[in-house]
């Protein structure tokens, strides 16, 4: 089958138009680069940040004082600790040192970062201690950042999924994209690519497996950047680790710290010791200390656990309602209205959510990956809106510096790779017998949950990997799409299979238990692995793992 390709040239290609991609594009364009954003959805209304946000992790010296290390130490005690412990000190420090500038910038662009002219910190913090999160009104952040990008002449290509990077060890030369509505192929020739494709869902089953879209991240967050980076030889790390989030039962939303109530057992007793009454300044930190407490209570027959906001004053309740709207809970609030649920009268059930992938693309504090010209920002290398904004901004700066000294070129294997990709797409479009994306996706989730789930061992991991590889081989030529929408899903599923496979390989290599990563054959935490990260990369088609000092 002959597939036409449209050729497009740009200095900087931002893959993904979330907070990271938009901030990178704005900065790179300001510094004089030609910039294209290729976004699978529409940048105004795409990604995890589209529904809003009400907390921005930042260090503001005029508020926190000059001891940045005291601030970091406090944050390590909160839910941030789980994520920060996998990042090097230079990354954390760079992040925080740049965070206030981004706050000021956003405020000047019309994203309200202050309340009545002052910084308002609340939530995500233990009573009486350092406040870690700035409260802001992020509902309109995506349209505002999109307008800022367009105003500067950034070219935004909505509904284009970049699905393969081109290049070699010398650097990035281009990327292949696909129009999500017509299935048209696009070849980008570029000097740099900034990956910002967001989170990974659909690898493990969600809370409601039949409804894959019911997740704290959007349905299209399939780790595209991580999978593409891996295929081209970039280093990923800790891909075997995961965390669990918690929030409103059944209706998945992030932002548990927006809720100002107390978590109580069925008898009304607080399950934690941090607050006993609803409090808009501090959220109930028991959720950050132990996200699995909901699941354990339930399994032990002691649950369910309820979020109880009753008793807030009228003005505090208004504050909560506004925060819930800014955090992206509009559909949830409408649901409450329709069902007659009143937060001042009713308590709502909370639960532990599904597995949340913690694997990241390895980068340094300059957002450089192990491939020259390949940068990354956002959930792919750090986490949160704040991480996306700060490192997006810095990656735009770095990419612009990089392009000044290099010319456009083609990689030795680019033509071969393009032909390979075209063959794959032709096969997916074939009308012969095959499997659809959903079947392939569900089989992957099932395999991950059964063999690389809550408790694993060498035996389960080896058996699971073998099964996954068998499924994969079967799908190599038999994944089928009836239209461009399904074609995009097939390309996502291919990325998920790549990530699934290396999850098994890295899990086999991590011969210990750590946090939520449990090996029944190595039930202890190996102190010799403290401060180390498990790197995995693709070398000539083979996965190679290596333990490395964090930041090394």
């Amino acid at each position, binding site marked *: 089958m002959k597939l036409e390709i449209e050729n497009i040239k740009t200095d900087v290609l931002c893959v993904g138009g979330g907070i990271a991609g938009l901030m990178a594009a704005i900065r790179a364009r300001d510094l004089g680069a030609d910039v294209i954003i290729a976004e699978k959805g529409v940048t*105004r*209304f795409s990604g995890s940040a589209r*529904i809003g946000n009400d907390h921005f992790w930042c260090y503001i010296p005029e508020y926190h004082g000059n001891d940045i290390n005291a601030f970091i130490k406090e944050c390590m005690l909160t839910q941030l600790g789980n994520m920060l412990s996998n990042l090097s000190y230079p990354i954390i420090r760079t992040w925080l040192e740049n965070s206030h500038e981004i706050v000021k910038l956003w405020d000047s662009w019309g994203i309200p970062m202050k309340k009545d002219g002052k910084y308002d910190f609340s939530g995500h913090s233990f009573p009486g201690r350092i406040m870690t999160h700035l409260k802001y009104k992020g509902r309109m952040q995506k349209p505002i950042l999109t307008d800022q990008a367009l105003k500067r002449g950034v070219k935004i290509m909505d509904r284009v999924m970049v699905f393969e990077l081109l290049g070699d060890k010398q650097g990035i030369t281009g990327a292949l994209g696909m129009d999500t509505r017509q299935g048209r192929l696009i070849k980008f020739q570029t000097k740099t690519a900034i990956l910002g494709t967001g989170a990974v869902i659909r690898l493990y089953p969600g809370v409601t497996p039949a409804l894959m879209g019911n997740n704290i991240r*959007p349905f299209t967050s399939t780790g595209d950047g991580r999978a593409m980076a891996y295929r081209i030889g970039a280093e990923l790390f800790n891909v075997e680790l995961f965390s669990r989030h918690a929030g409103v039962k*059944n209706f998945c939303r992030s932002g548990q710290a927006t809720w100002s109530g107390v978590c109580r057992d069925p008898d009304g007793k607080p399950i934690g010791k941090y607050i006993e009454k609803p409090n808009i300044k501090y959220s109930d930190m028991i959720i950050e200390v132990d996200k699995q407490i909901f699941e354990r209570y339930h399994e032990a027959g002691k649950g*369910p656990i309820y979020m109880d906001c009753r008793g807030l004053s009228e003005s505090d309740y208004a504050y909560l309602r506004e925060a819930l709207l800014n955090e992206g809970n509009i*559909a949830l609030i409408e649901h409450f209205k329709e069902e007659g649920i009143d937060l001042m009268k*009713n308590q709502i059930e909370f639960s532990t959510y599904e597995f949340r992938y913690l694997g990241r693309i390895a980068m340094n504090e300059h957002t450089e990956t192990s491939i020259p010209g390949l940068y990354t920002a956002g959930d792919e290398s750090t986490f949160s809106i704040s991480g996306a904004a700060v490192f997006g901004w810095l990656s735009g700066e770095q990419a612009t510096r990089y392009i000044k000294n290099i010319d456009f070129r083609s990689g030795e294997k680019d033509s071969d790779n393009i032909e390979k990709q075209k063959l794959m797409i032709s096969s997916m479009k074939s009308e012969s017998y095959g499997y659809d994306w959903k079947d392939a996706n569900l089989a992957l989730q099932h395999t991950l949950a059964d063999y690389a789930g809550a408790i694993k061992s060498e035996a389960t991991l080896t058996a699971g990997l073998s099964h996954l590889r068998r499924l994969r081989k079967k799908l190599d030529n038999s994944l089928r799409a009836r239209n461009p929408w399904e074609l995009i899903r097939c390309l996502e599923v291919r990325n998920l299979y790549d990530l699934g496979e290396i999850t098994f390989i890295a899990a086999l290599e991590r011969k210990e238990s750590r946090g939520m990563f449990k090996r029944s054959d190595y039930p202890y935490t190996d102190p010799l692995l403290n401060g180390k990260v498990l790197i995995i990369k693709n070398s000539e088609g083979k996965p190679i793992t290596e333990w490395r000092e964090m930041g090394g």
Partner: protein
Amino acid sequence: MPPEIDYSKCTGCGICKDTCSEDVFFGPDIVEPDGISKPKVTYPESCFHCYLCVEQCPSGSIKIRIPLVMHVPYK
């Protein structure tokens, strides 16, 4: 399954289709007896429940029907 379009109110402007990043409204529109083509909900299970299609719809024709499996237990 979300979202649902009230075709008696829908004017066929297509804003919902332009808004949805998951392309829930993918594919050819349906043509109503009045000759106006209107978006159809093709892939509801990919909905993120972001509510943006409801907010952007100028004629108020879209409603998000939360699937029963997502209903929040409370007391």
